[in-house]
């Protein structure tokens, strides 16, 4: 977690700020940033995943002295960046299958070690479907063996590339193609799904963190910290998807921010299975503010809405605030 700098107009809350000391500025604020995911990619307007990937990989590139290999799972990030024969990646990049990115990354790291190329680092990345569900066996193995890979999950809370199907990371009540807003319980059911960051922690790996595209200073500090360590590391980044969430493209960051400020997406860091830092909520907001602008939650509002569902989501947020100590 980064320390907030105050009284500089926007302090460390904005991307940069001409009044900040160089060392407090983000990689993204510099003209020298790598633009690891460069222009011309085919992500939707306002795609949080495209943004999150550039945020993460640019820091990883800087920390690795530009010696980095990226392994990608199947998913939007892979599809929109590499329609054959074009590539948006300004980093050596490899894609194999939907569910095997952690295993491929393990292999790349092993090959580099075998060749004595210890200065080159490995980053693996995938969507929530590829990570939390289909790639989870490979990922757990990678954790268990403590392979020297930084794994990033870009969580947009469903299988977006194939048309918004529910994943193990889809929140309760959300409407997806496979959890329609129909019948007795509308949208995704309560009490299912998994919290990948907490499961990663249960492997007692050196580093686990959650991050958000709405808090760049925090995200960059976490990636930099992870890059400074070796062994298996995991960062779970919250990335709104305008297409799948039914939100305005210009609201991507606002929604990511509201997810944090409601308490629905807690930001924390853990080392060897223990939580070491949480990022306190700056201004607490009710979950309704976060849910209302998203069409996937439209059935929670209006005349025939079941108010208990909203209350249950608020309860989840409150429990997070309590459990993670997010009030500051």
């Amino acid at each position, binding site marked *: 977690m980064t320390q907030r700098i105050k009284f500089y107009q926007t302090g460390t809350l904005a*991307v940069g700020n*001409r009044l900040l000391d160089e060392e407090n*500025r983000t990689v993204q604020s510099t003209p020298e940033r790598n633009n690891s995911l460069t222009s011309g990619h085919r992500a939707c307007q306002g795609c949080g995943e495209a943004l999150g990937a*550039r945020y993460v990989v640019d820091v990883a590139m800087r920390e690795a002295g530009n010696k980095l290999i990226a392994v990608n799972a199947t998913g939007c990030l892979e599809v929109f960046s590499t329609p054959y024969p074009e*590539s948006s990646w300004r980093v050596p990049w490899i894609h194999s299958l939907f569910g095997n990115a952690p295993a491929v990354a393990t292999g790349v790291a092993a090959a580099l070690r075998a060749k004595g190329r210890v200065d080159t680092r490995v980053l693996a990345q995938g969507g929530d479907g590829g990570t939390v569900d289909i790639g989870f066996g490979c990922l757990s193995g990678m954790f268990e063996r403590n392979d020297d890979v930084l794994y990033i999950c870009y969580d947009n809370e469903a299988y977006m590339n194939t048309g918004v199907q529910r994943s193990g990371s889809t929140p309760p009540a959300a409407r997806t193609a496979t959890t329609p807003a129909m019948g007795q319980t509308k949208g995704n059911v309560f009490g299912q799904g998994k919290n990948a960051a907490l499961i990663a922690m249960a492997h007692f790996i050196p580093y686990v963190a959650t991050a958000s595209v709405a808090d760049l200073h925090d995200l960059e500090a976490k990636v930099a910290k992870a890059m400074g360590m070796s062994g298996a590391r995991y960062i779970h980044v919250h990335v709104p998807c305008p297409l799948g969430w039914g939100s305005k493209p210009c609201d*991507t960051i606002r929604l990511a921010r509201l997810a944090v400020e409601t308490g629905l997406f807690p930001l924390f860091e853990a080392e060897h299975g223990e939580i070491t830092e949480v990022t306190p909520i700056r201004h607490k907001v009710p979950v309704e503010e976060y849910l209302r602008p998203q069409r996937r939650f439209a059935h929670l509002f209006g005349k025939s809405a079941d108010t208990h569902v909203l209350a249950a989501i608020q309860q989840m947020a409150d429990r997070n605030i309590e459990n993670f100590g997010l009030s500051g």
Partner: protein
Amino acid sequence: MHKPFAITLDIGTSLANHTGSWRNERPVYVDLMPPCNHACPAGENIQAWLYHAEEGDYEAAWRQLVTDNPLPAVEGRVCYHPCEGACNRGQLDEAVNIHAVERFLGDEALKRGWKIEAGAPTGKHVLVVGAGPSGLSAAYHLRRLGHDVTIHDAGPMAGGMMRFGIPKYRLPRDILDGEIARIVDMGVTIELNSKVSDIPGMMKDGGFDAAFVAVGAHLAKRTDIPAREAGKILDAISVLRDMETDEEPPLLGRRVVVYGGGNTALDMARTAKRLGASEALVVYRRTREQMPAHDIELEEALDEGVILHWLTTIKQIDGTTCTVEKMKVDENGWPQPTGEFETLEADTLVLALGQAVDTSFLKTIPGVAITDDGVIDVDGNMMTGYPGLFAGGDMVPAERTVTVAIGHGKKAARNIDGWLRGEEPATRADARVAGYERLNAWYYTDADKTVQPALNLIRRQTTFDEIHGGLDETNALFEARRCLSCGNCFECDNCYGVCPDNAVIKLGPGKRFEFNYDFCKGCGLCAAECPCGAIDMVAERM
């Protein structure tokens, strides 16, 4: 070319794919009118000078400030700062303490001796009548534009009501002298003790190409109060003037009653307190809410022990007894007599019932019109009906403050310049006001307003020392940095950071950003996340 198995195309970069064609709205950078600038009667570009102050570059800040207002050290003290009433930060926590930073910059300039150069000579000569804030401001701006200026003032010293009205405890005279001297140093000639009675004649004889008149409003309004025995009745304007010109302070006695409800009445009562009056009473016929005096001044007067009698009129004065009648407000908000009388002990009654303009020497000028309120009519360019004669300040229809007077001087100078050149002066390109709803206020850090130090009460009641202290370098910097930079880019890099398509180009410090429309998909994230509302989304023509 030999290609590996199953590979048929050359690998290429996605830069070949111009996603700008997806766009149906384009982002554009704008520079809007910040509410503070909009509210400033002198037209200061407050946001722009705070921008430099935020960096600690106080000289650049001051230079930006004085492009509009030549008297920041005075203004930082006496202006009623309508800018702060409009400041968007007021909706977040508390308004930026603009006047305190302005004062700091003004004092800094005096301390460091920063000067202003006159413009390249135009060979034109302008007559200014009156060396109050309006005349001084006009002279200053005309010099910046390269015109020669001669000021004639009837008084023994320049400054007008800044010297002969506003008391020292609010405006120390070394500050006023310092700022006037800087204007004189630009090559302005001031002829003192020179009352002008024939402007067209003087223009002709002196070979002046244009004239600006700002003689203020100096004639104290009176009311008939029967005095059976010779009660002592004075007027506030004369008393305050005597404070400046006489060796001996005016003799007011122990109990002073001031009649009126404006700032002059309060300054009069506060001055009486400082001169040793044990009681200083202000009698006003309407309610507290209806008093024309500004709230800050009323609060300060009350703090100092001035007593106020609202809804009261003075019926007569006999020696040391004043008879007053209580009033009540009718349904239309007007005070009506109640027939209930009271007596107040008063050694002196001082009238502060407002001032009128001496129009006697202007009435005869062909084309010059006088309004029903007895002030001089001017057009939108501050020109009277007599070609080449402009007027401003207290003598034209407007609020009567130093800042309005300075604004008139500036506006008149720019219009005189335009008139002499035969062209219209330039106006701001985008005059839309950047309201609070344009801001993404989440990004601004919490920061409470800096409070200026104040003199203790005993010294306030017994001396004419300045009440309020100034800011120093560190808290002035802090205060400047509270500015939200409404509607004007301050280079926080948000747009550059949040674009998922790298379609924002950073041009480097001070040069801001540019859009790369080849790749901008028009998602609008930059505009939504710009803290200060400096980006508009504009529909593309299909």
